């Protein structure tokens, strides 16, 4: 028996790894992940307007052949953009400090938040699994109760009453008991259906909402990582170098040496280039800050995803418990009134 299980295992393991069947857990996870990805993407006010995203979602052509004929611009979104003075002069002086502190705090505690929320998701998952197990047990109840009813005739004869004294004495009571047992089976059947429906809703809808919030946290985490990695600049070094070169330039131009002409031109070119470079870097630095600021402010809206997930959870649980209560109530009425406790 054990070896046949192992064989089953290896067979299904193989099919799962080689050509996954469409309903395998792996593909389900992937499909749902892609689903969440797309729905999050089209919520973002900037990304949803990106022509490539629009193309991805609307152009019926095969994307591989579309890419071949399209000219795709991979350059940074701020290319050619200049920071607005309103941001530098009005917004930043007022909220810059607060934002940078918030950003830093969020960055520091986000891993913890992700960890905790992941555990909440796992608990919801576990709850859902447990419902499935209860549902499975319920059908086992049905099976066992039916078998028991089929067998109790042998212990408490009651079916054939003609000329059978003992059977006749049992007839009413044992039949009533058996009928009640079948009501109990019926209850377990209905409860099982209810549990499976409930588990399905949790699995496909509520759990996805909990995971959707996880995804948001992970996306923010990745933004933190990227901005740390990519917002480097050489502004302090440039500033230093410009200062040094300007001093040299001034000291040379006050000399009377003959060869100063070409040297001056060279120095001036270096200073001009450095200033230009510094201006570009400063501008870019501001644009990055503005962008991160906007993203952080927008991210504040994701708190409502917490409400959404839990509100759905509560609504679903309440509906389920309400129906479940109805089943119990009906069963209780039948059993307490109809199951004989004595002759």
């Amino acid at each position, binding site marked *: 028996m054990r070896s046949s299980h192992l064989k089953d295992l290896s067979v299904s393991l193989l099919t799962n790894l080689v050509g996954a069947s469409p309903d395998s857990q792996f593909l389900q996870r992937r499909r749902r992940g892609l689903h969440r990805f797309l729905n999050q993407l*089209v919520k973002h006010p900037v990304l949803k307007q990106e022509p490539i995203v629009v193309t991805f979602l609307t152009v019926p052509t095969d994307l591989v052949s579309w890419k071949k004929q399209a000219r795709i611009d991979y350059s940074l979104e701020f290319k050619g953009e200049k920071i607005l003075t309103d941001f530098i002069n009005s917004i930043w002086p007022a909220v810059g400090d607060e934002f940078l502190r918030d950003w830093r705090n969020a960055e520091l505690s986000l891993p913890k938040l992700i960890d905790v929320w992941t555990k909440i998701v796992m608990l919801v998952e576990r709850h859902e699994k447990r419902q499935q197990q209860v549902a499975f047990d319920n059908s086992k109840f049905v099976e066992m109760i039916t078998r028991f009813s089929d067998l109790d005739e042998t212990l408490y004869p009651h079916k054939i009453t003609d000329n059978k004294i003992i059977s006749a004495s049992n007839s009413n009571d044992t039949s009533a008991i058996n009928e009640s047992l079948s009501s109990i089976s019926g209850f377990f059947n209905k409860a099982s259906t209810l549990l499976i429906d409930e588990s399905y809703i949790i699995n496909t809808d509520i759990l996805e909402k909990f995971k959707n919030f996880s995804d948001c946290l992970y996306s923010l985490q990745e933004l933190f990582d990227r901005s740390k990695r990519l917002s480097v600049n050489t502004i302090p070094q440039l500033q230093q170098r410009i200062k040094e070169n300007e001093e040299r330039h001034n000291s040379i131009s006050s000399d009377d040496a003959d060869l100063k002409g070409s040297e001056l031109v060279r120095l001036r070119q270096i200073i001009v280039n450095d200033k230009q470079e510094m201006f570009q870097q400063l501008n870019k630095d501001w644009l990055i800050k503005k962008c991160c600021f906007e993203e952080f*402010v927008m991210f504040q809206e994701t708190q409502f995803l917490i409400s959404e997930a839990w509100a759905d959870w509560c609504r679903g649980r309440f509906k389920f418990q309400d129906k479940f209560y109805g089943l119990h109530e009906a069963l209780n009425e039948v059993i307490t009134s109809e199951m004989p406790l004595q002759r």
Partner: protein
Amino acid sequence: MNSIYGSENPFENGWATSELDHPAQQFPAVDQPFSVSTTPSDISAKVPSQYLAIFAKLEPHVTSVSGLQAYVFSPLVTEGFLTSYQASKIIDILYDHDLMPPDVQNNFFHALGLIALEIGTAGSGDYVTLQFKLNSGLPSLPVAAANLLVADSTEDTKILQGVQTHDFFDPLSTQLSNSKLDDDFSTKPAHWDVEAKPSTFGSPNLESPNHDQTALLIDPDATVPESIHANDIEYLSKHIMDIRDRFKPSVDAQHKITIKEVPEKEGLLFKHINYAISHEIPLSVNGPGGLKKVVRRYSDFVWLLEFLLKKYPFRVIPGLPPKKFTGMFIHSFFKTFLDWRHLHLLS
């Protein structure tokens, strides 16, 4: 044009990679005149009388290079005396040799001299030739050109002002072609002031919040304008709310996308899974509405994400499900197996 510090990082300075047409002219960044000694103190004796007439006429209008552009170069370009390339070369020379501002008589005469040389023989309008000519006397402008410049027509100048916005060689706007000019920078007559005092920008880094305000205020009495809304809580809250209003992340909002697997056999060994995506989101402004259906592969999603990461590295970008759920997958598989065995042992 990219960084002389040659960063490996592809995002570094990506916004400014476009080649500039006139790099030399961009940032005459230094405050001190470079060529004081080579500029003769007074050249008015060496210029044709028409120069004096033109200067008398245009002096009030040419306080900045944009005035020079509007009242001198634009008419000449429009009338075909100069090409806009020649005009831009001359402006380069004026910047390079610190012949600014143009309403100083000497500077203006230099400009006219260069123009006259250029009109006479294209390519000869360079600074060295000009200095050489200064000894003998600067060449005259063609009479038609000179008349054009002194012509009294406010109508014309209005039109020319219009032209100016198109081929005006502002050091900032030529470089940052998409920038909005209706802000403080462009209203300053001398644009290079901004670059000459870079400390007013501050260079706060996101990682060093503590340096931030100090860096911004290194030069507090310089060109930093009063922060108009710094204490205007209403304005600021509205700004924050406007940003927040743009983003409604709720899952159950309208326009949900649905996705279905479409298994498809391609090739002998590998089975590709296609995803049929359908939605009714009105994405493009003038595109057709209604139900849209596309078929994409997992690899297409990967490509899309990579593109977004390159173009929008400073935005929150949703993540994709991993290519393989290795750990989790095996774990959950074993768990299923164990559950199943457990149940079968019960029966």
